[in-house]
């Protein structure tokens, strides 16, 4: 149960753990000091984390280059269009152009034969000539309006530039020119009408130009971009080549290759980094656990009197786990987040400061708001933890005392408290969950807000030709790189805080004052010790209160000392002093004339066999439990002793005999456990014996077995017995009567009865009616 309590105190709870350390800085410092062994690995890991972050900062820039390259593929070469358009314009308006038209057409007004014309036509012809005279610009129009009869007369086949140009072609040409319909110009004229132009090493022929004019003729400036692009598709190939957007696939391939390498490197760094940190974290955790385990055995017993074992247990598991986990995750996250954060700010400013300011400002507002919410939710989380603890306490209390609750009709009372606590937990749950749930959508919104802000400002800058489109794309990534680490930093900080709290507890335990090192020169060989024990003027107290005042007694070898007294009278104090679990304040205890102060604890322990009331077996086989740490004990010896104690038969009935696994739980009865501990004690052939014979929860038959075994155990040894059986007490050579931690009477049975003191009263109370 103690473990359960420790768990409910913290650890097993879910959601963020907001435990505050007493001294954050100092605890972390201590933690890092202890990490020194791993410092190379940590250093490499952190460098890798930073490199990985830097790589992911470069990536968006490259990606924006890629986008730029691709977007090259959709923007027409406006420069060439301009060149071409200007070229054509210039040509059309040039003298050479009109002369060339004249030459091609070769119109001969003077060759008109009036007499072959109708009078109408003559009139029209004259009018036209008159119009032409007045309005020379539109000559062609007027000509094209002429009836065919006249045209046939003034236009004839002719030769231009060595090529024959037919009469009908000329007529079509005239009408095309007149109607501004270049498309209808006969091909042979198209070929010769304009000069060839060379743009970007590509020859644009006259025909190309004319088709260009004819296709783009009706496109005005505000035309829809799709219409324009649609027209482009119809252009002659040579012109398309010149003005069509071109993607430089080589560039794209190069960028893509670079990015692939970058991504792989970044992932690889990340991977190596986390493997390194995992190794460090787990090895460190292992080391901490080992140190705690070793520490347990170095602490004075006094420590365990004041500290719950559940608390120490939770240090071994929960606290160490917290440290390992945060080392594994938070440390690298923190470093790479900070790198990303700072890096993205630098990159943003490096790329474009106006955009950088926009990005930072737009997310900053959101973040301030978010941290406000976060700190509020932290409050509710703490409250929830407290309320949940109360509720769990109540549940534990009611469940474990359920028979009393039932028998006393305490259900209503229990329900009332439960409802109240449950309601409190509900409120805290609701609020904390809601507020912490806000985090993600808010993050999303901040990201989107930043996106829009960057886009708008970006567009403004693009339209003013301050930046390229790719920079906007880069900023879209930057804004994510910039917003993500902030929340990660916040999370890592909270987790660091609970780490600090955990490491504080672990190191507090590890730094607990140990028993002093012993360098004693005297040694008692267990095989040679006779077993005389002498107490002279012993004074002792667990704290300032001296409970044993001036105790003197002389115990000869083989004698039995019975320690009696009511529960809680401090009978174990005597054990503690003899075993040097505690040091006496004054006086001396001597074994075979040598003060125990001159002996090492280890030496003293080897002189005693100790069988205590709280039967102690551990998970393991029967044999392991019996042998424990004794060495060189043969199976025959074990069986012999087990037979003597009368436990052999029982062990044989277990499924695997001596190799059956037993647990401290309920797999075997407490009486049997006691017998096993007695066997363990008997195999430990020390000259002195400490025995607690309480058998309160053993049934009568087992009890008899136990008693016999105990009697056997005391044979020939100087024994200190916490006595419960009257037979032991009456046969004891010395009875120490204890009350309230103090030895109040001493002597043998007869002497004490005669004194008619506390012992006599205690003894007689058994027979009271």
């Amino acid at each position, binding site marked *: 149960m103690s473990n359960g309590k420790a768990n409910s105190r913290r650890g097993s709870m879910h959601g963020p753990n907001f435990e505050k350390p007493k001294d954050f800085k100092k605890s972390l410092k201590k933690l890092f000091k202890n990490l020194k062994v791993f410092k190379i690995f940590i250093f490499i890991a952190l460098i890798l984390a930073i490199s990985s972050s830097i790589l992911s900062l470069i990536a968006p820039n490259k990606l924006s280059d890629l986008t730029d390259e691709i977007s090259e593929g959709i923007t027409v070469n406006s420069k060439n269009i301009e060149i071409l358009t200007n070229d054509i314009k210039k040509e059309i308006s040039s003298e050479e152009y009109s002369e060339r038209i004249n030459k091609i057409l070769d119109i001969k007004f003077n060759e008109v034969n009036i007499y072959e014309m109708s009078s109408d036509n003559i009139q029209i012809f004259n009018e036209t000539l008159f119009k032409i005279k007045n309005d020379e610009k539109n000559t062609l129009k007027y000509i094209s309006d002429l009836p065919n009869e006249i045209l046939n007369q003034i236009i004839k086949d002719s030769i231009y530039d060595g090529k024959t140009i037919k009469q009908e072609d000329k007529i079509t040409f005239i009408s095309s020119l007149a109607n501004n319909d270049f498309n209808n110009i006969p091909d042979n004229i198209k070929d010769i009408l304009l000069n060839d132009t060379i743009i970007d090493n590509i020859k644009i022929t006259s025909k190309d130009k004319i088709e260009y004019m004819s296709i783009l003729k009706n496109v005005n400036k505000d035309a829809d971009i799709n219409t324009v692009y649609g027209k482009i598709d119809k252009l002659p190939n040579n012109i398309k080549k010149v003005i069509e957007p071109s993607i430089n696939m080589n560039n794209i391939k190069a960028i893509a290759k670079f990015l692939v390498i970058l991504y792989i490197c970044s992932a690889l760094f990340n991977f190596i980094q986390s493997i390194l940190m995992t190794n460090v974290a787990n090895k460190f955790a292992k080391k901490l656990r080992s140190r705690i385990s070793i520490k347990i055995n170095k602490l004075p017993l006094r420590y365990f009197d004041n500290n719950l074992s559940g608390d120490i247990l939770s240090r071994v598991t929960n606290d160490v786990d917290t440290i390992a986990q945060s080392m594994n995750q938070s440390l690298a996250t923190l470093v790479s987040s900070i790198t990303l954060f700072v890096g993205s700010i630098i990159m943003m400013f490096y790329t474009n400061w106006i955009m950088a300011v926009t990005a930072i400002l737009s997310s900053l507002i959101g973040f301030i708001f978010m941290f406000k919410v976060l700190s509020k939710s932290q409050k509710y989380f703490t409250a929830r933890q407290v309320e949940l603890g109360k509720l769990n306490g109540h*549940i534990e209390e009611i469940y474990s005392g*359920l028979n009393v609750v039932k028998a006393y009709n305490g259900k209503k009372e229990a329900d009332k408290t439960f409802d109240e606590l449950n309601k409190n937990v509900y409120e805290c749950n609701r609020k904390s969950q809601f507020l912490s749930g806000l985090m993600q959508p808010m993050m999303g919104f901040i990201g989107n807000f930043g996106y829009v802000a960057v886009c708008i400002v970006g567009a403004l800058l693009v339209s003013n030709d301050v930046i390229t489109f790719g920079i906007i794309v880069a900023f879209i990534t930057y804004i994510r790189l910039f917003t993500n680490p902030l929340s990660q930093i916040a999370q890592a900080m909270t987790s660091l805080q609970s780490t600090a709290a955990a490491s504080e507890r672990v190191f507090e335990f590890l730094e607990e004052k140990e028993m002093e090192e012993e360098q004693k020169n005297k040694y008692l060989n267990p095989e040679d010790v006779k077993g005389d024990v002498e107490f002279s003027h012993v004074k002792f107290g667990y704290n300032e209160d001296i409970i044993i005042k001036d105790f003197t007694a002389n115990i000869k070898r083989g004698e039995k000392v019975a320690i009696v007294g009511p529960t809680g009278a401090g009978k174990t104090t005597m054990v503690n002093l003899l075993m040097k679990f505690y040091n006496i304040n004054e006086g001396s205890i001597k074994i075979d004339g040598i003060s125990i102060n001159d002996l090492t604890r280890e030496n003293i322990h080897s002189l005693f066999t100790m069988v205590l009331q709280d039967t102690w077996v*551990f998970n393991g086989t029967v044999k392991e439990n019996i042998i424990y740490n004794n060495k060189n004990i043969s199976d025959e010896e074990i069986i012999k002793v087990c037979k003597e104690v009368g436990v052999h038969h029982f062990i044989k009935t277990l499924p695997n005999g001596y190799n059956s696994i037993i647990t401290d739980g309920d797999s075997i009865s407490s009486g049997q456990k006691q017998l096993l501990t007695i066997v363990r004690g008997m195999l430990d052939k020390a000259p002195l014996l400490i025995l607690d014979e309480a058998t309160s929860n053993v049934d009568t038959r087992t009890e008899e077995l136990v008693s016999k075994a105990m009697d056997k155990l005391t044979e020939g040894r100087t024994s200190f017995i916490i006595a419960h059986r009257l037979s032991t007490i009456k046969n004891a050579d010395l009875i120490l009567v204890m009350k309230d931690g103090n030895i109040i009477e001493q002597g043998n049975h007869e002497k004490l009865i005669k004194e008619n003191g506390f012992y006599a009263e205690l003894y007689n109370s058994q027979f009271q009616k």
Partner: protein
Amino acid sequence: MIKLLRSFNKKDYFLILICFILIIFQVFLELKMPDYMSEITKLVQTDGASMNDILTQGAYMLLCAFGSLVSAIIVGYFVSNIAATFSMNTRKKLFNKVESLGMEEIKRFRTSSLITRTTNDITQVQMFIAMGLQLLIKSPITAVWAVTKILNKNIDWSILTAIAVIVLLATIIILMLIVMPRFKIVQKLIDNINDVTRENLNGIRVVRAFNAEEYQENKFESVNTKLTSMQLFNQRAFCVLQPIMYLVMYFLTLAIYFIGAILIKDALMIDKITLFGDMIVFSSYAMQVIMSFLMLAMIFMMLPRANVSAKRINEVLDTKLSIIDGNLTKGIDNIKGEVEFKNVSFKYPDAEEYLLQNISFKASKGETVAFIGSTGSGKSTLINLIPRFYDVTDGEILVDGVNVKEYKEEVLHNKIGYVSQKAVMFNGTVESNIKYGENGKEITDEKMKEAIEVAQAEEFVLKMDKQYDSHIAQGGSNISGGQKQRLSIARAIARDPEIYIFDDSFSALDYKTDATLRKKLKKYTKDATILIVAQRIGTIMNADKIIVLDNGICVGMGTHKELLQNCEVYKEIALSQLSKEELENE
């Protein structure tokens, strides 16, 4: 899990429905955003696009983002409400259920397990609802919707995205298959480490007395090494996940762009712009698809754990009550303080052997009946049948002439002053502990003080800093075992019951206190019937009737003297505790 969720009521379902609609709305908005994004991109691309257009599109997009934020907040509010209400109600239900369970069921579940079920397991399920509910609705919708949005756009890109999703899911599944079984082992090893440490702590004196420090440390080290290597394996395996996730996502984007470049290059001019826009939109939708698949995978990682908890909760909720309350509010009028067993037998439902067989006796008003026998002889079980902590298998128990099964439990319990084997203390004061519960009448301060005095507790209670008002910690951890026992006896006395039941309640008292207490008690409770279970002969020697149990069978009944003459088992017990002369002195 689903079974547990049935406990949602109409209001919850209504809220879930609203959440559902809101989440659809949210997904709609979120998926709409890339459209605006691409529109904005396009506009930014176009030379001379009017700033106004960009602003409008930006405003639309922000509106979407804001709408999705608002809807997320509302959903979050509802979901946290649903989850918190669920956990509150389920906890309440579970608590009530446990309260009505019989001791037998409690024994079967074990108290500590019931506690974790009511606390941790419920928190587990609540967390799942809070996180899972949103994700469970949102990610499939997003995935499907996003897929339909991009499905017709381009087959190459779609195949790419599908491959990315498959790679990711395969990685996760393989990882889970490798790691999951080892997770269980890790859990076990953590238990082992706890066990070894606890063993060392509990047996600290033995460890030192045997100079076994090194032995323990070696033992710890071997478990520690195992745990560390197992954990290292698991965590190393997980180290792969993050880089692969990033690689897949980045490579997908890169691949979409690269293929996009080729497509644009070869496309007609008229298609180029659309392709470019599509490319950017596609890459953002593809991310959405991958993210929602990742979310789904996460739910399925969370699900087994929550499911185990849900199962454990249901196990308790589904337990059939073995003890059904009667409805009688009083016994036969002129009989008081009478307990009669008629051929009572008892066994646990699934057990083969009877724990008690054919027990018959009668305790009349004012009599003291004692039960003795070795451990496992069934004496505690016998006495626990009276307040119906268990129900008899055969035969019947009459209290005041009426079968206990017919009483309303409350009425039955009011007749009884029960003192348990393990003294139970509640968080509160001495007073609140003594006056604990209800018995139809108020316990006055005088009564309380008197009870404390009779129970031999006055001496230490008056020494406590606030006397009767002194604080008692949970489980009575701030007072000693003997003190707890005396207070729990006082609690029974304060109720003035007709029948006292002492279930080995004197064990922590020394002989002297034990004797004085019983003497005082006898004087105080002249008329009450007393039933005592004890280990010590001294405690029961003077009873009017002693019943000797051995393996659930009554092997002797009578007074101390009679039994010494004619009951072997009793004699054996007596001899082991008192020397022959002392017994003969009697």
